[in-house]
């Protein structure tokens, strides 16, 4: 493997690597806009300039292949001056609208300006006027004046999605990103273009104008939108989660994630959540603390089991962590001696489908984990069996570990109609479900925590175990399935909150101190 010296440090890199990859390996600072590790090399921003010993001209690090013994630096006066000018060329026609720009706080131009800039601009001419607020499609808005034409988004639609919606139109400093006639940017991965846009040119319709990024905290977790289990970052504050972005994971999702996966944050927020325990008995609805609701449900389940060992069943979905699944299935099959556990597959027709990139038909993060738990317990019940027993009235009490994200369960209403044939329905779910409020059945609803509020493990379609940590707490009263399992069997459970409820970031540097602007 060739060795290269970068800013005085020696590093060994793989044969055929580029100099910029060597910089990344060393975690050395290098400015760049057009280069992205998941895309082809464009070599157009001309910012990743390096001085290679023995070369009179500066080279771009992104298109220079490492050769053994190469000595490279990007901290000499010559390079810094070049980068400063390279940055200035990017800025001369860039609008000074940071205060109203969504990218502010995570903008490549701001970052490099702090590193190389802090000078008085020499540009005294009028800036080029271009289109503002261009609707590129259902998810993305373009501001052409902010665009630095790095071509990352164009290359993304060419190389990753191969949908080719975007192009650069016109020439010179009149160049603009755009879509072709009647062909909007409308693919399942379109929002990746917003992530890779180094400036505020492409913004997400979902996120724009909703939060300033420096008031958001970020934490690592995985996407629970399908069985791929992409590595993601979730951005949140005390009000809830605001957006999800992909995190690099070479084994699973590379640099990308799908647009549907980005919506997972929406079902953790208060407006769609079940906030307290609910009891519906004899047509009367009553709110009560979740622990009490679970305890009451537990009493019913245990009483019914005593009356008829076959009168109770549990329906599981692949939506919960391995630990939770083990604990609830274990409680039923072991402690309560009830082996009538069924696996609810939400979309049988498309369950095994795959879009070729990331999105899978199995919209559950832990189907593999659930299957293993059922296997370990030697449970092998068919859905037809459950259906028959529900319709015949053989099962009178049903516990359902219901989906966190109901929008991924197109058969939800149909299933609720089926489940409501029982006398007692125990509904464990993070999501609010108004259909349950009018049933002619006794219903106990217990609010659950969502994936960002609890720690645990998910097993993706590859069988890869992915542990996640609790990020924040949104509904304080919500329980984990493990806690519910304990309460159902009648144990005393000490309910704790793992994640600290986030308080406001009121001591933000920017709001508390006037900087040297």
């Amino acid at each position: 493997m060739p060795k290269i010296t970068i800013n005085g440090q020696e590093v060994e890199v793989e044969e055929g690597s580029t100099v910029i990859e060597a910089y990344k390996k060393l975690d050395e600072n290098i400015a760049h806009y057009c280069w992205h590790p998941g895309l082809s090399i464009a070599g157009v921003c001309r910012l990743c300039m390096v001085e290679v010993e023995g070369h009179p001209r500066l080279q771009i690090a992104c298109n220079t292949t490492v050769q053994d013994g190469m000595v490279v630096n990007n901290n000499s006066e010559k390079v810094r001056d070049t980068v400063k000018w390279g940055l200035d060329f990017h800025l001369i026609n860039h609008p000074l609208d940071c205060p109203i720009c969504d990218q502010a706080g995570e903008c490549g131009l701001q970052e490099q300006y702090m590193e190389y800039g802090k000078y008085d601009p020499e540009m005294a001419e009028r800036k080029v006027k271009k289109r503002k607020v261009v609707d590129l499609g259902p998810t993305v808005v373009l501001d052409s004046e902010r665009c630095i034409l790095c071509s990352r988004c164009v290359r993304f639609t060419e190389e990753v999605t191969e949908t080719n919606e975007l192009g650069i139109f016109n020439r010179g400093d009149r160049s603009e990103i755009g879509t072709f006639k009647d062909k909007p940017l409308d693919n399942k991965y379109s929002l990746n273009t917003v992530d890779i846009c180094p400036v505020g040119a492409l913004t997400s319709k979902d996120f724009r104008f909703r939060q300033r990024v420096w008031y958001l905290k970020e934490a690592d977790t995985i996407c629970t939108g399908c069985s791929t289990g992409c590595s993601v970052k979730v951005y949140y504050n005390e009000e809830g989660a605001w957006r999800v972005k992909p995190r690099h994971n070479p084994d699973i999702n590379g640099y990308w994630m799908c647009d549907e996966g980005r919506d997972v944050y929406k079902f953790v927020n208060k407006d769609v959540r079940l906030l307290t325990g609910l009891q519906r008995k004899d047509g009367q609805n009553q709110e009560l603390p979740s622990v009490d609701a679970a305890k009451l449900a537990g009493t019913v389940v245990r009483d019914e089991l005593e009356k008829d060992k076959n009168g109770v069943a549990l329906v599981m979905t692949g939506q919960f962590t391995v630990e939770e699944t083990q604990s609830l299935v274990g409680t039923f099959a072991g402690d309560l001696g009830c082996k009538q556990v069924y696996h609810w597959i939400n979309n049988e027709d498309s369950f095994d489908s795959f879009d070729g990139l990331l999105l899978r038909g199995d919209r559950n993060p832990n189907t593999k984990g659930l299957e293993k738990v059922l296997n370990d317990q030697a449970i092998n019940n068919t859905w037809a069996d459950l259906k028959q027993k529900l319709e015949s009235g053989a099962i009178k009490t049903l516990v359902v570990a219901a989906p966190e994200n109901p929008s991924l369960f197109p058969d939800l209403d149909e299933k609720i109609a089926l489940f409501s044939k029982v006398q007692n329905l125990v509904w464990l779910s993070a999501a609010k479900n108004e259909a349950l409020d009018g049933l002619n059945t006794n219903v106990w609803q217990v609010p659950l925590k969502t994936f960002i509020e609890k720690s645990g493990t998910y097993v993706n379609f590859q069988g890869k175990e992915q542990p996640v940590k609790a990020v924040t707490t949104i509904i304080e009263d919500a329980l984990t399935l493990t806690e519910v399992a304990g309460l159902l069997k009648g144990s005393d459970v000490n309910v704790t909150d793992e994640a600290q409820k986030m308080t406001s970031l009121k001591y933000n540097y920017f709001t508390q101190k006037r900087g040297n602007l």
Partner: protein
Amino acid sequence: MITETKLLSEHYDNPEFKGIEGYKKLGGYKVLGDALKMDKQKIIDEVKASGLRGRGGAGFPTGVKWGFLPKNDETRYLLCNADEGEPGTFKDRKMMERAPHQLIEGMIISAFAINSPKSYIYIRGEYDSCIEACEKAIEEAYKAGYLGKNILGSGFDHDMDVYRGAGAYICGEETGMISSLEGKKGQPKLKPPFPAVQGYLGKPTIVNNVETLAAVKYIIRDGADAYRKHGTEKSAGTKLFSVSGNVQDPKTVEVPLGMPLMDLIELCGGLKPGRKLKAVIPGGSSAPVLNVEDCAKAKMDYESLAELGSMLGSGAVIIIDDSNCMVDILATIMHFYHHESCGQCTPCREGTGWLNKIVHSIAKGDGRLQDIDLITKVAEHMMGRTICALSDAAALPATSFVSKFRDEFEFFVREGRSKVKGGLNA
């Protein structure tokens, strides 16, 4: 008496030379027959030995370029760069209009030498007459058996086509031309890989100028030594110069490389009576301008002009007399490069626009004194920073105009009017 040395342009004035019959009568396609009997490597060696350098602008040795092709059986392409776009250049146009078969013969010989089964002549969109002439000549060559399968019984197959550009300057850059030919937006490609290794459709490709390919015929006809008798040691052969601007008889002339610039001006009738020489752009609008002192020393070959800080380029010699305002001329040049920058690389995309605006501000009388130094600063930071040479092509005239005619720029800023032409406040 200063005279031309005519190799390529010998029969330009004979209208018969355009058609295949007239061309054959004057010795056409004889060299092709001889060449097809030669060893391919021998042809390449002969071209190398002749010292022929690319006539399109860069002046890269042609034989060396051919030598970069991989030594394998991969399909390779020969592209003729007839996208003559450098302001001031019109030599290729004349050749295609008056002697298209001479180009085609040179191309077939070159294609044979590099073993290419297919070639294209990429002609700029505005050159209707050239496109017509070349298409007709190719058709004639096919009918006469000089193109197609088994040319003259040699076993060598070759097809040739004309590809019409849309008039973008950047498509004259070899990788920009390849992009355009591939049906993509005409934008230069990142190098490496170089076209000789990975060019048109990802295959090894040689791109040569019209004049270069036509010259190959004469090198094979007369031999490298005879060709070297013309010109200087390092700049061998004759060169077509497009002389324009303030001379009495602007035209294309063919002279040996190394001719003094002042002789070239005389060959074109000299200046108009009463005018004095002020400056010369010796190699197309991207070449740094020469002032009168430079002009007296200048010889028209690659090395002498490089010594003076300029370049031979495509041989477009623009003569500027004392009736012209240099600020005006630079404003026109900057407008051109701003219009033609493809917009890929930031320093060029933004720099050409910035320079254009600054120079126009000065030319409108709105300039500030610091703008003059700013032109140099911006231009210096555009040089050597981009994928292709367009950025340098815009920067070089800017720096040279400002450094050599600073007084005119300063006058314009101070007085708000041209030092030469006067103006509103004059």
